[in-house]
């Protein structure tokens, strides 16, 4: 297992190099000068040139890349051109927000999908199974921003239960714990519905698969209590793909928040990248994309580790 894992971890920097070069190329080879955009057209060419030099934008792109990686290795993500602040500081502000949103979406997906998926498998072709299937089809078909609009219309505008914005702004309508949770509810549901659908379908099918296995008949032939059969013999097997998928999807959730952040005015990493792209704020785009790709990869490695831990058959 360790040799496999170390191989995966050694591969990580290589993949990150490919990712960062690609994003670097896209950024540098496209038209649009961040300094011009920031300073406007009236600024003197000298001032523009000075700033360009300060951000090393006058160097060829491969030199810029080498400088960037050199700084990165010393823990320096560079400075935002537009905000004139360290990218690292921006990351420190935005990353916790994105993590909190991803976690709350995950929590919603897990809390809904476990009972739904399991009950659908146990009570096949009953109303709960049809409900699970219907929800799954809907979840796979509705984009998160469209769902967010529906949720806002129903729960914020019509019913007035939840604020439209509020994460990171402190503008919550509730008090105490509920006040802290409240602004996360609609974004989490909108963001996590696709994951809920994925988990529900996965859990249902893996549970059905497990229930049809010969060892379930053995468990019955042993005269064990139904709850023991379900919780120990069935669930432990059915949870293996589920837990793995959990880790992978968490990695995804961090990277797909941009539309949700846009709608609910959440100051997360996605909206930071969006405005950085619009303003050609190169250091911010590079740094944030790299961090998100790293999270994605770590989530995949975590999935492999979890797989190895919960499934005794896996020995890397």
């Amino acid at each position, binding site marked *: 297992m360790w040799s496999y894992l170390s191989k995966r971890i050694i591969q990580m920097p290589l993949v990150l190099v490919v990712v960062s070069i690609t994003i670097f190329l896209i950024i540098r080879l496209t038209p649009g000068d961040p300094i011009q955009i920031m300073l406007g057209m009236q600024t003197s060419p000298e001032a523009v040139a000075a700033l360009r030099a300060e951000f090393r934008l006058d160097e060829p792109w491969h030199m810029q890349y080498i400088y960037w990686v050199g700084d990165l290795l010393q823990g320096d993500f560079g400075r935002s051109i537009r905000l004139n602040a360290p990218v690292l500081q921006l990351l420190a502000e935005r990353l916790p927000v994105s993590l909190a949103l991803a976690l709350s979406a995950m929590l919603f997906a897990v809390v809904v999908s476990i009972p739904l998926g399991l009950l659908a498998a146990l009570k096949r072709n009953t109303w709960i199974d049809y409900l699970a299937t219907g929800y799954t089809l809907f979840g796979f078909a509705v984009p998160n921003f469209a769902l967010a609009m529906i949720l806002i219309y129903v729960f914020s505008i019509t019913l007035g239960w939840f604020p439209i914005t509020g994460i990171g702004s402190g503008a919550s309508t509730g008090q105490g714990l509920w006040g802290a949770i409240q602004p996360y509810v609609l974004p989490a549901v909108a963001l996590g519905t696709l994951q809920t659908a994925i988990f529900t379908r996965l859990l249902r099918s893996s549970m059905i698969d497990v229930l049809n296995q010969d*060892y379930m008949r053995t468990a019955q*032939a*042993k005269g064990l*209590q139904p709850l*023991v059969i379900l919780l120990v013999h069935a669930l*432990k097997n059915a949870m*293996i793909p589920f837990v793995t998928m959990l880790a992978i999807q968490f990695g995804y959730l961090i990277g797909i928040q941009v539309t949700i952040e846009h709608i609910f005015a959440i100051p997360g990493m996605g909206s930071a990248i969006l405005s950085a792209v619009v303003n050609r704020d190169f250091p911010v785009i590079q740094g944030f994309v790299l961090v998100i790709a790293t999270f994605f990869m770590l989530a995949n490695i975590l999935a492999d580790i979890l797989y190895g831990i919960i499934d*005794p*058959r896996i020995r890397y």
Partner: protein
Amino acid sequence: MPLLTVKNLRTQFSTERGTVRAVDGVSFTLEEGEVMGLVGESGSGKSITALSIMRLIKEPPGKIMADELTFDGVDLLSLSPAQLRDYRTRHIAMIFQDPMRSLNPVLTIGRQITETLRRHLRLSGGDARRRAIELLELVGIPRAEKRLDEYPHQFSGGMRQRVMIAIALSCNPRLLIADEATTALDVTIQAQIIDLVRRLRADLGTAVIWISHDLGLVAGLCDRVSVMYAGRIVESGPVRDVFYRPAHGYTLGLMNCTPRVDDIGHRLKPIDGMPPNLAEPMPLCPFLPRCEKAVEACSVKRPLLETVANGHMAACHADLSDHWRKDKVA
């Protein structure tokens, strides 16, 4: 009173193609300490008969009916699910066909053995573990103490089957149903298992239903044998009688396609054709289309189980005495 009484057992499955009568009127009794063989080709209803006795048929789509299905005087069909659970493995234990898939892949062997001990015998964790080690040694698994903490995938097929047998024997059941229990094992291990079953029967008086298509094995192990075809018992009786003086065309066919050590040069003859579709009504003998010994009566009515000799019954119109092994008849 017999330990197990099965009278007119019918197990059916409703499918898209109609009702499949997998077991269609099986009757037999089993005494304490008796070993009965159940033979027949796959699809003949042997396993379904076993699963019906364990009440492990999923209902629906399955349905178990019987005029009588009693174990030690208790009606198995009227037991509540909770009562049924108290019988399974505790009193009636079963070894399944496929050792590769019958053990739970994510639980240790120890856990899978001890859970029956703790459930049925109320043993403590330590006692259950000690007993589990005994059981593994009993079925011939070396380094039992260490292997208890391993997972099924670390065991070979033969070793897994031994674990299955250890689980089945864990609570000293009074009836053991072994469904092709040794088919996956090589001959030497097979012999060890057979020896184990013999000892169990001698020491504990365990009754055994031994399901197999290996006639030689059944001949060596069992007191009596029942031959199943298309969901029915077509012939049953003492092992010697049935095998040396078969009274049903199907049994004769089975004998002819089984190699015999004592008869070198004997030509093996496979049975032509396919078993019948169990979803269709069978007004005549189900073996008729494949039978070489059919007589006129066969195309008129279905033969019923009738006594041929003392304790030997067969459902066949034909007279097969020409084929009897005269040399073996006492």
